[in-house]
């Protein structure tokens, strides 16, 4: 595990590195394998303590490929420590904490400080502690622990009020039912598993994106939590694990509203847990634990990894020589399909359509170009120009709704509509675990609002002689918060009506999108 991997080469494909590591488990490198939670072999107690210096790997993306083995070690260390200090988490010295924990502690202290300021207490913790007895008497005359949590929630409320004017101003009136993005609050969640805290931070900073990646990351993290959980003396493992997992789930919900597919996974997990509880004769703790962990592994393998491979096989039937395929954004399944098509030696071209602000298509472009596929790249606004020579459109999905509509990255509906107008078939690749039992008729009822500042982040453009913009160095809206009457809306998902979709490729076959509820019933 040497950190001498090429940190500067932009074409170093993270998926390839991950594939080498788990060559035994998955023959095809799926792009939802993220480098943040590289699946480590569950070795324990063998990692040396000298991996502290890897703390900066999490920051730089370029060196993350080299950092992944080190992060694996870090995770192992985390588990080790957590194992040792299971029931009583004492204050560890900062040197012993991992970066995530240090971050969490810092966050906690910062929030506490804000709370103190908002409550009118002096800023330093020492002086506030002197005054604390008066506050406690004023608020809740109860046990120490409850007081602390309640105080922190009161601080949170005050903090929220102070923050409210800005976020309220940015709220779009017809989207007030959706939560605006917020930073994960780690202060009141000291008793959560640190892996879940870290995962929440990854989600909120968009380090792990994509429905498959997020699902897999979440399930693996929960698997760790289950592994490490030791129930209190008066309850069995099986009955307690659900209660134990609930605050973790709530925390993740607070960082980023859960994708529909993640909700399905959690529903499945809860069903598994309740199945284990009902087992008669009741299983021992260890048996229940290992059964659950095995079930999770099984789920990931069967319904995500193997499903992707089957989808690729099914989808290959539909790609012939000389095709020009258009895809939108970055879907791990579509990427696997295109790479496999290239491997089979079929001659085809790919057009990648991308959109701001996430610009995910660039990553797909990099991987495909590295594999030697003939690619073109367009932005969404010029999709009609791109569609001139296209024979098929293949896209991925985030979830498939009961009425056959596709819930996917924002912009998918436009590409499907444009293709339909030109009578070009639209194929959606979707695993069956993404089929959900809900329906939406428009994109606004359930959606996710992203960070509005991403819209303003327009990189300086080195144009020589653009028609109307000589050289815009930054967006005109860089100070948009001071601008009155102005709101920025960063929607992340949209719903594509079923009439624009020709075909859905799943691991159980090729189905019309209106058969979605049938599949859901079969495989729930």
């Amino acid at each position, binding site marked *: 595990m040497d950190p001498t991997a090429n940190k500067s080469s932009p074409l170093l494909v993270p998926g390839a590195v991950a594939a080498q590591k788990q060559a035994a488990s998955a023959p095809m490198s799926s792009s939802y394998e993220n480098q943040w939670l590289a699946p480590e072999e569950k070795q324990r107690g063998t990692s040396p303590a000298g991996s502290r210096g890897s703390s900066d790997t999490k920051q730089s993306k370029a060196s993350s490929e080299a950092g992944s083995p080190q992060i694996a070690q870090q995770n192992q260390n985390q588990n080790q420590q957590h194992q040792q200090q299971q029931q009583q988490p004492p204050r560890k010295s900062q040197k012993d904490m991992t970066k995530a924990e240090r971050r969490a502690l810092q966050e906690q202290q910062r929030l506490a400080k804000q709370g103190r300021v908002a409550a009118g207490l002096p800023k330093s913790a020492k002086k506030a502690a002197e005054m604390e007895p008066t506050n406690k008497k004023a608020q809740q005359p109860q046990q120490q622990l409850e007081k602390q949590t309640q105080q922190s929630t009161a601080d949170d409320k005050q903090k929220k009020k102070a923050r409210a004017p800005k976020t309220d101003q940015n709220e779009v009136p017809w989207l007030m039912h959706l939560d605006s993005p917020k930073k994960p609050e780690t202060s009141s969640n000291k008793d959560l598993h640190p892996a879940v805290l870290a995962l929440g931070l990854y989600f909120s900073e968009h380090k792990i994106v994509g429905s498959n990646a997020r699902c897999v990351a979440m399930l693996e993290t929960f698997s760790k939590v289950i592994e490490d959980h030791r129930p209190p003396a008066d309850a069995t493992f099986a009955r307690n694990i659900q209660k134990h997992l609930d605050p973790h789930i709530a925390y993740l919900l607070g960082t980023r509203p859960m994708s529909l597919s993640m909700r399905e996974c959690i529903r499945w997990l809860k069903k598994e847990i309740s199945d284990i509880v009902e087992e008669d004769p009741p299983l021992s703790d260890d048996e229940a634990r290992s059964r659950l962990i095995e079930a999770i592994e099984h789920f990931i393998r069967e319904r995500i990894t193997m499903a992707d491979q089957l989808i690729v096989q099914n989808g290959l039937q539909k790609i012939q020589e000389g095709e020009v395929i258009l895809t939108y954004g970055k879907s791990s399944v579509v990427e696997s399909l295109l790479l496999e098509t290239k491997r089979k030696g079929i001659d085809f071209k790919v057009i990648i359509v991308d959109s701001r602000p996430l610009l995910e298509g*660039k990553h797909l472009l990099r991987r495909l170009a590295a594999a030697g596929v003939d690619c073109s*790249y367009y*932005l969404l*606004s010029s999709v009609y120009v791109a569609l001139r020579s296209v024979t098929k459109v293949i896209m991925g999905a985030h979830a498939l709704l009961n009425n056959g509509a596709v819930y996917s990255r924002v912009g998918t509906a*436009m590409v499907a509509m*444009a293709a339909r107008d030109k009578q070009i078939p639209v194929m959606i690749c979707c695993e069956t675990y993404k089929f959900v039992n809900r329906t939406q008729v428009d994109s606004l009822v359930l959606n996710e609002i992203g960070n509005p500042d991403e819209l303003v982040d327009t990189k300086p*453009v080195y144009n020589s*002689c653009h028609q109307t913009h000589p050289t815009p160095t930054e967006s005109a809206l860089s100070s948009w918060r001071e601008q009155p009457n102005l709101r920025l809306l960063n929607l992340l998902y949209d*719903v594509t009506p079923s009439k624009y979709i020709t075909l859905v490729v799943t691991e159980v076959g090729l189905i019309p999108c209106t058969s979605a509820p049938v599949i859901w019933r079969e495989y729930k």
Partner: protein
Amino acid sequence: MTLPTQLEAQVENFITRLKRRQVIGSYEVAKETAVILRQAVSMSKWRDADALIDIIRDLGGRLASAQPKELAVGNIVRRVLKIIREVVRGELDDMMDNDDYDDDNDSNTYSEDESSPPPSKNLSTTSSQIGSISERPQLTVESSMFRLLADVSPATPDDSSDTPEKKSYNLKPIIIQEINEEIIADLETVYKGIADQAVDYIHANEVIMTIGKSRTVEEFLIRAAQKRKFQVIVAETAPTYQGHDMAKALSNAGIDTTVIVDSAIFAAMPRVNKVVVGAHAVLANGGLVAVTGSQLLAAAAKHHATPVLVCTALYKLSPVFAYDAETFNITVAPNSILDFQQGSLIDKVSVANPYYDYVAPELVSLFVHNLGSAPPTYVYRLINDNYDPEDTSL
């Protein structure tokens, strides 16, 4: 025909700037073209109307070919040519006493070149009425019928031979006056004419969606906001981000504005009551050449049965057809899509950055222009009124 050197220098300057795309916006281009053509009429030597027409046509051809995708140049040239011919015809009829045709025609065409200045002034201040157009078609219907029945140029055979000199003597001031009034002054009032109609198209509490930065649309919405309260959603128009500037201008004027990314257009469309866009040029079949993303916006609006209003001035009307979507498109530097820092990726990938979009006439509900409004099916009549058919190819 060689032009006088002073004029030639001006022309060369303009052509260079056109080629380098340093003249920004069709409004500026139209204005400068009109000024140059007026100079050409006044400074060059010509003995009769035909010679003048040849000079202008020649010059116009040079200007149009400097930047063929900038259709406003050609439009103004065609307008000037039509004015010249109209003036010539007006003078001609003046001369003709014993005419075969009705006094109706006579008085009409006579009144045409004298009374046309006042009506055009009136027309620009009235708010939207289709009737405001009808004043002009009445006159010009006569002239087109006139054309059908008669052989206009060269001048009618009954003309005496000494009239050409007399005409060129008289025509120059009239032509220059016409150019000043009909074209240059008209250009000044273009934005006002469109904005005046704004209140007729927007009701209270509407949600309007727009894309790109168009001064016409901006003035339209700001004028409407003085009387009505509504919200605007602006699509940001990557990669030029013109939408950001538009949003800033609108919110500064007190309009409740929301900026969305282009990909969210379909998602937000159920919420929108009207779509208002500007255009770079309007083609003879009613189609538009507009900023990239407009086709997406118009198609999404069509799918949601939302009306699409296009605010354009009449000088953007062009008597050419687009036989495919690429005819009037320009591609600009692609580094705003995939910048050069991507390094080795650039070699393996083909990137295109088209600047314009072609919007089919079926997707447009109404054109709002400075003299009223027109559905896309009426555009060919507007073109007939403003241009002569023999000028279509310069």
